[in-house]
C-alpha cells in the first residue's frame, strides 16, 4: 500500500482536484447518503474535502424520487480551475442537464430496453407455442 502521509500534508498541491461523491458520515447501516464534493485526488473518499458542491440521496423517497442538489456556480468555478468529475458525478450532472448526457447512461438504458423487449417477445413466443400445441392436441 502506498504510504499516504506525505500526500496528506496541509499544503500538498502535487495532486489534482476531483468532483466526486463522498459518503456523508451518518454511520447508519444500509442507509447511504452522498455529498458531491470537490476534493484532492489522493485524499480518502470521506475525509477532508475542499468544498461541498451538493448532495445525492440514492434511496428513493415516498414519492419514488431520488433527490439531488447542485451548486452550479461553484461547480463552474472548479471545472474552470481544472477539476475532473468522476464517472458517477458526470452521470448525475448529465441527467441534471448541466453536462451532456453520459454515453453509458444511454447505452445502459438501451440494453435494458432490449432486454425487456426480448423478454416480452420470448413470452409471446411461448404463448404462441402453447396455443399451437393445444390446437394440435385437439
Amino acid at each position, binding site marked *: 500500500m502506498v504510504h499516504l502521509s506525505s500526500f496528506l500534508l496541509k499544503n500538498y498541491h502535487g495532486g489534482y482536484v476531483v468532483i466526486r461523491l463522498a459518503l456523508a458520515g451518518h454511520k447508519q447501516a444500509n442507509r447511504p447518503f452522498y455529498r458531491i464534493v470537490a476534493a484532492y485526488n489522493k485524499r480518502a473518499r470521506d475525509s477532508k474535502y475542499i468544498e461541498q458542491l451538493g448532495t445525492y440521496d440514492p434511496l428513493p423517497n415516498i414519492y419514488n424520487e431520488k433527490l439531488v442538489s447542485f451548486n452550479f456556480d461553484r461547480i*463552474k*468555478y472548479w471545472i*474552470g*480551475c481544472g477539476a475532473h468529475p468522476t464517472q458517477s458525478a458526470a452521470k448525475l450532472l448529465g441527467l441534471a442537464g448541466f*453536462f*451532456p448526457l453520459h*454515453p453509458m447512461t*444511454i*447505452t445502459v438504458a438501451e440494453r435494458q430496453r432490449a432486454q425487456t423487449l426480448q423478454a416480452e417477445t420470448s413470452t409471446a413466443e411461448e404463448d404462441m407455442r402453447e396455443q399451437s400445441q393445444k390446437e394440435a392436441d385437439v
Partner: protein
Amino acid sequence: ANQSILHCPAARLLSPRSAVLLEAVRGRKSRGDPVAKSKEGRIKEPPPVDPVEMVVLRERFSEYQLIMRALRLEFKEEVLRKKYQEETGSMAEERAKQEAEEHRALMAWNDQENQRLLKLRMLRLQKEKEEAERKWVEADIQREQEQQELITQREREILQLQEDAKNFITLENLDQRIEEALDNPKNYNFAINKQGRVVKQTVQQ
C-alpha cells in the same frame, strides 16, 4: 483503399493499441495468502463486447469528450474574466474610490471626536486646578485661624496667671497668711450614702 479502411470507425476495434490484463489491485488478501478453494481453477475474462454497440459507444464518447472540452474552456474563461473584473475592472475602481471616501469621512469624524474630547478634558482640568487652588487657600486660612486661636489662648492663660499671681504667697505675706490659715480651719471631710446624698456637715476635729 487501405487508407479508407483505416479511416472508418470499425477499424479502431480491429487493431486495439492496448491489451491490458486486469491485475488484482485491491481486496482484503495480502501478498502471501493462497487462492480460495472455490476459486481455484477460475479464469477471469472481461465481459463480452458487442462490436456494433462498441462502435456506437466510441462515437458517443468522442462527441461527449468534445462537448466536455468545450465546456471546460468556457468555464475557465469565465473564471478568468471574473478574476480580472475583481482586480482591475470598473467596479474595482469605484469600490476603491468609495473606500477612500469612507476612510476620509471616518478620519474627519475621528478628528472631531478628538477635538470635542480635548475641550471636555481642558474644562475638567481647569475645574480641578481651581478646586485645588481653592483648597490650598482654604487650608492657609484654616492654619492662620488656628494660629490666632492658639495665640489668644496663650494670652488668656497669661492673664489668668497674672491674676492668680496676686493671690500667691510671698515672703512678705507669709506670716499674714499663716495667721489667716490658722484662724480659718477648713474641713474637707464629707459623707456620702449609697443614694448619692452628700453631707458636708461633719463633726469638727
